């Protein structure tokens, strides 16, 4: 009995190892890309055009989220790991160190443009004119006591009018992405923290107790005013059209596509338009990136051509095809800088 089991195990190990050597040796003739679901629509557009207009195969793009993408990307430098990862935030120090530790020494960072995060509601309701402070007060879990004093109370506001008397007297009801989403991270960091900092004593806390400051500014209320509506932004659009008093949080491209049904709220007096996000006037916008594994350039066919296609003005320029898809282009100088980095494969050094 035991003999049988041992020989069976031996056979399966031999089979397994021969199978693995078989697959590893076969190489790969297409580019493998992973990463952020926010960058996904742009990367796929480039990949498709690249595949159709060159002799190379169309790259394969998985939508794994920024964190998941970097995890796969940094797992090693073998051919079975992804060549490029997309990210809707910059690589973190911890991720960079993990990359270095796993032998992924040289990484090129390419910033591709900006994405605006909008708060929108149905056209059936009046347009909201918000400030970052309004957003913070309406959505944070704990806010400074409205009766004065430097202490926090559980968020007492239930209508926008209570937050700011200039706003309409409607219930606070905001549909947004769950904590796993990069859009949520960016929204919390840019809009809520931005509003939070306008309160003097909380701002002062940033220097003393950074952790406490973060937990005050970054924690979203859980009493039903903020509704986690899942990662599907289309769903949020449909829901805010159906319930006109609700606000939705999503990427600019969804506002761009549905301009006949929904309107973006102004933040700090700035409309979320293409021009305002591009010029940096609209405050809630974040940069988008992708990271290239330098060791794979020249090994996987088509890598440098793909980089050239992505960083051409035809793609990411002001009138490029990515702007049709809702990507906010960078200023010319910045585009030149990153196009040069992509062409020369300048390795990223993070300190």
């Amino acid at each position, binding site marked *: 009995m035991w003999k049988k089991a041992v020989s069976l195990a031996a056979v399966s190990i031999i089979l397994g190892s021969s199978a693995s050597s078989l697959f590893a040796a076969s190489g790969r003739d297409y580019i493998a890309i992973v990463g952020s679901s926010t960058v996904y629509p742009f990367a796929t557009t480039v990949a498709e055009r690249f595949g159709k207009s060159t002799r190379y195969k169309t790259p394969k793009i998985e939508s794994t989220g920024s964190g998941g993408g970097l995890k796969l990307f940094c797992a090693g430098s073998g051919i079975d790991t992804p060549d490029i990862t997309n990210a809707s935030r910059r690589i973190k120090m911890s991720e960079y160190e993990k990359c270095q530790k796993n032998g992924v020494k040289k990484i090129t960072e390419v910033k591709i443009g900006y994405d605006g995060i909008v708060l929108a509601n149905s056209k059936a309701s009046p347009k909201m004119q918000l400030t970052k402070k309004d957003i913070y007060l309406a959505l944070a879990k704990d806010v400074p006591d409205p009766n004065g004093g430097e202490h926090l109370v559980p968020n007492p506001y239930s209508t926008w009018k209570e937050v700011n008397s200039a706003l309409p007297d409607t219930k606070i009801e905001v549909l947004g992405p769950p904590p796993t989403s990069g859009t949520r991270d960016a929204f919390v960091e840019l809009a809520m923290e931005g509003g939070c900092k306008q309160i003097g004593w909380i701002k002062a806390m940033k220097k003393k107790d950074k952790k406490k400051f973060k937990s005050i500014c970054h924690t979203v209320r859980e009493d039903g005013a903020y509704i986690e509506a899942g990662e599907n932004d289309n769903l949020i659009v449909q829901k805010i059209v159906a319930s006109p008093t609700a606000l939705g949080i999503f*990427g600019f491209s969804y506002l761009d596509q549905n301009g006949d049904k929904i309107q973006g709220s102004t933040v700090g007096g700035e409309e979320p338009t293409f021009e305002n996000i591009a010029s940096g006037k609209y405050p809630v916008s974040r940069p988008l990136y992708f990271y290239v594994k330098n060791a794979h350039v020249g090994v996987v066919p088509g890598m440098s051509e793909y980089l050239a296609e992505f960083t051409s003005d035809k793609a990411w320029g002001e009138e490029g095809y990515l702007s049709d898809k809702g990507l906010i282009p960078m200023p010319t100088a910045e585009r030149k800088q990153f196009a040069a980095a992509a062409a020369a494969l300048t390795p990223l050094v993070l300190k």
Partner: protein
Amino acid sequence: MQVGKRETTMERVNRGLARRYLQERLFRLFGLGAVILSICLLGLLFVSIGLKGWPAFEQTEILLDINFDQELFAVDNLMGADYGALVKSSMRSLFPEVKGRADKRKLYRLVSSGASYVLRKMVMEDTAIIGSSRKIWLPADDEVDMLLKGHIRRDVPESDRRLSDQQIGWIDQLTEAGLLKKKFNTTFFTAGDSREPELAGIHGAVMGSIYTLTITLLLSFPIGVATAVYLEEFAPRSRWIDLVEVNINNLAAVPSIIFGLLGLAVFLNIFGMPRSAPLVGGLVLTLMTLPTIIIASRAALKSVPPSIREAAFGVGASKLQVVTHHVLPLAMPGMMTGTIIGMAQALGETAPLLMIGMVAFIVDVPTGFTDPSTVLPVQIYLWADSPERAFVERTSAAIMILLAFLISMNAIAVFLRRKFERRW
């Protein structure tokens, strides 16, 4: 205590009769209500998907006069010629009054970016058309398609639409001239995924599903049937076998994402198989469908009456002969039904495929078991999340295709059961 006339049994029965009848009527009404409600909900699902998805089978195309100018093809590489310029010059000749770069760009945008690939394919297939001039139906942009299908409102201010008043004017002119028509959407059935809704199709996903399910069927059917036969016919009654049984029943209830994690750990990390391949997808789905098939097969084997086995033993058949000649053929219809239902379940699965990289954007239609590919339900999920409005109807259309596959698979299962089932 007063002693009255004692109640007879009959009287007691009669007294309770009305209540019992009422209870039964209520129960029946309840059951009927439940059936009607579920049929209504199912109908609502079908109707809403059908209404939304139906228009996707038609796609707006534009008739353009394309002049395959010899000068444009005076390059070494026919692949690299500027096919976009052919479309642009044709559009310019339709609207000669349009001047200025911005206006021209708006005009060119009415035609899909895929039009140039259609022309390139025509030239590559038959170089003789260079120098001639032809009238060709080319795909229009998805915005044009949406306007013609009534999904873009004309009554809102210009800035709130993706099409300007000027563009709508051009579209109306083209429609009146009969140059813009809705035609049967063949692209939807022949193309792989695309970021442009008018170029996106489900062929890639359908092929991926077929490859994946082939692997699943080839592995899970023989393994499942063999397991069931061993457990039911040969295995000695022991604690060890009981443990195996409990575990198989448990596995049938394990959430499918767990199988995906297992696949990632074993097939990708240990065996080093390629990511996003139907081969790995098929292996993972095999693990998932095995318990279903084993349980169904065992039930089928159990339903074969012992008299058949005894009769076979009686004429001197060995145990293996009894099983292969008599029991297995009689149990086969039940096993096949179970297998088809397991397959249908596997066809609709996305969660386990997420971990092994089959949730991906793949344009090229897969041609083998190790090509990167995706499957139908994943395609539906990816389209449902796309910002372009034209993907809404495509999502529903893809759901219709998936439902058609599922319904036909289940119909085959019912047919097999009816045709081959034997009652004793």
